[in-house]
């Protein structure tokens, strides 16, 4: 049976067993490798994507439950050449070392800032606490999310679409 859903605004239909993970489809079928495998156990956050604007673990999410839904991956935010303001804020803060955890963290930051454009430090920490970072870039990452919030609010006030 075909499963239809959208990824980064594009409609897709895949003929796969409904128990296959969203992560496997994104990476191995659609070539969207910015969403990363870390543990397969919902413990590290590397595979975080947005499903209908809510952060979700792609590693454990079965395709059957994604039918008709809208998925956003890191590639849907921006590219190296044209980064989204959140990605740009991470670059400005040099927020990362190995970078493996970053795409999931940026996605969670997007979900946070979409619902709360002016979060306090505690709210950012709470939103990112489902993510692990082994290199110890945490403080830079927190500053990057604050910087992104400021940039997005400024863009919003100026009437620009981020």
């Amino acid at each position, binding site marked *: 049976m075909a499963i239809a859903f959208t990824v980064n605004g594009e409609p897709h239909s895949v003929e796969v067993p409904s128990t296959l993970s969203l992560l496997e489809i994104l990476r191995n079928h659609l070539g969207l490798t910015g969403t990363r495998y870390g543990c397969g156990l919902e413990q*590290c956050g590397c595979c975080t994507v947005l499903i209908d604007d809510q952060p979700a673990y792609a590693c454990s999410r079965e395709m059957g439950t994604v039918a008709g839904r809208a998925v956003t991956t890191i590639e849907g935010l921006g590219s190296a050449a044209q980064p989204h303001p959140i990605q740009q804020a991470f670059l400005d803060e040099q927020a990362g070392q190995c*970078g493996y955890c970053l795409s999931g963290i940026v996605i969670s930051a997007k979900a946070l800032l979409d619902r709360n454009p002016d979060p306090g430090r505690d709210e950012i920490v709470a939103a990112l606490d489902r993510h692990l970072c082994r290199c*110890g870039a945490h403080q830079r990452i927190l500053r990057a999310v604050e910087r992104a919030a400021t940039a997005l609010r400024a863009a919003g006030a100026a009437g620009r679409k981020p």
Partner: protein
Amino acid sequence: MTAPPLPASLPASLVDNPRLDRWIRFLPDRTVRIATGKVEMGQGIVTAIGQIAADELDVPLDRVAVLSGDTAEGPDELYTTSSLSIEVSGASVRLVCAEVRAKALDRAALRLNCSRDDLAVIDGGFVQNGTPTGQDYWTIAGEIDLGQPATGAAPMKSAAEYRIVGRPVPRLDLPAKLSGSAFVHDRLPADVLHARTLRQPCRGAELTVLDEAAIRRAALRQHAAGELQIVRDANFVAFASPVESVAEAAAAAAPSHATWAGVRRLAPVQQEAAWLQGQPSDDRRIGAWPAPASPPERLVQASFSRPYIAHASMAPSCALARFDDGRLTVLSHGQGMHPLRRNLAEALGLPVEAVTARHLHGAGCYGHNGADDAALDAALVARRLPGRWIRLQWRREEEFGYEPVGAAMLVTLHVGLNERGRPADWTTEIWSPTHVQRPGSGSGHLLATEALAEPPPEIAPFDPPEARGGGGTRNAVPLYDVPAHRILHHLVLRPPVRTSALRGLGALPNVFAIESLIDDLAERAGEDPVAYRLSILSDPRARHLVQRVADWAGWAARGPSGTGQGLGLGIARYKNRSAYAAVVAAVTVRQEVKVDRIWCVADAGLVINPDGARNQLEGGIVQAVSWTLKEQVRLDEQGIASRDWQSYPILRFSEVPEIEVELVDGAANPPLGVGECTVGPTAAAIGNAVSHALGMRIHDMPLTRERIAAALLKV
């Protein structure tokens, strides 16, 4: 004609790879390609090497492309370890670029019929008395013989002339990592087969039954149209499929359909550092032996420990391999591609020339994790299934369960004091398994070789020699003015788990022990820990850091002990000869320890990329906080039992302290790597802060809720 021998003072990498073209090439697109054998692990080395080359050549940084870890084209610099990349590879690139610059200017002067002194280089172009000559590196490159060996004789720039070195430069690799495909894990060639393994439980275990039909049924249950290939080579088993979840399901099901004989049984008690004492060991005495007899009233002894800890990379190890006509190509995130090439050739019985190993980025490893082992796993599958790419990835539980772990250590200090309560005589006694079992170094081999029909002979473990900084003995000698010091090193021969390099090796437990005892000696003398340290510390760089970090952290206002709030300090010079770091930690201790704030002042000599260096210092601090408070590899009868992030928790966003880092201006001194210098001082500062907060010391890491409760009960 043979080239004259290189001066012995050249960096080792340049002695091993003297040809200039192993390091530098001018490409037709007006870029210059710099090759390094050191690899990017998130520490920013590729960016820093690019900065060094750009400055020495006088080309803009965006014209420099750095090729890292490539056995076909780049230099052999062994492994990327010990915070030595800047010191060794950076120094080599600097010499090579200076020499090529001089050769190019000589050649240009000849062509322009002028003196070399009339020429300058601006943005890669040659300028005569301020006027462009139309000549540049790329017009001249064809006339320079880069096949010549480096002499190391060309004059290099002074630190004052640097324009790019010493300035913060954004990491070149970060944009890709923030937006999409960036890692070896992300290489998915069109016909790739995904592979997983069934691991031999331990060396010597024999696979007596493997129910392949049952594994096949389990793997294809969800994917009836899928295919699965089972590769078996003696006690090595792997599962390969075009569908990744089929290979994964096979590997997940396999252990319950496999019977092993000869499995070594462990006991949980072996997970503790205390177990090491009394085990068979190779004992070495280093330093001022024999020890004098101190009067008992002036002899202080205390023991400290750290358990086994994991690298715990965010990504499980992964490699791609392809076998074509007897030639093997491997893509790996290991720390040394040339050693990997040799190790793979040896394991597979191939000539070295038949193997190419290329580095692609992986998650941060902080030492020797499963990366190299996954490369052999992939190669073993590729040999059986030639002509297409094999992408082998370890499972999360495999990464935790089978990577080499950081060695546990028990450290007992025996210190004789003088009449003023200062150390007059110092013995550091260490029990620890080896800290390095890197394949090909003579101390270890690739994991799957043990599962093959003819496993390599068991290796008698040894530690890195003191000349290379030591392993268990790293930082075992105090930085302080101690008239006589010595080490008794018990290298434990049969640890329960495979141990190998992890950020700092023995530096963290040794510095934790030494700096803890120094605080206790200060208390015994009735003196402030900072004042006490300064009274026995003559190294001016270290003194400066202690004073600076104490001032910055408001040490003068430090409160009384036993209030639940603590402030503690730790200092060390990594390997006693590399970068210095002094750290102050502020903690709150209730049921558990919360590290509230960290101040760090470091002296790393000339810093190539200050922001990159700060990032490394901060990262080392966070990792050390995590080790000190939370981490311990747990064992059960079968082996490592902590196989996920719940049983092996690491520091989270909600637990990370505020961190402030300052680099002192060290441009007058040679550059030193900074990846490892903070870990010991951070652990020590936390230990001392907890002691200050509680009014009693906890000697064993991690400083958990259980240990605090036990310490409080003793009162």
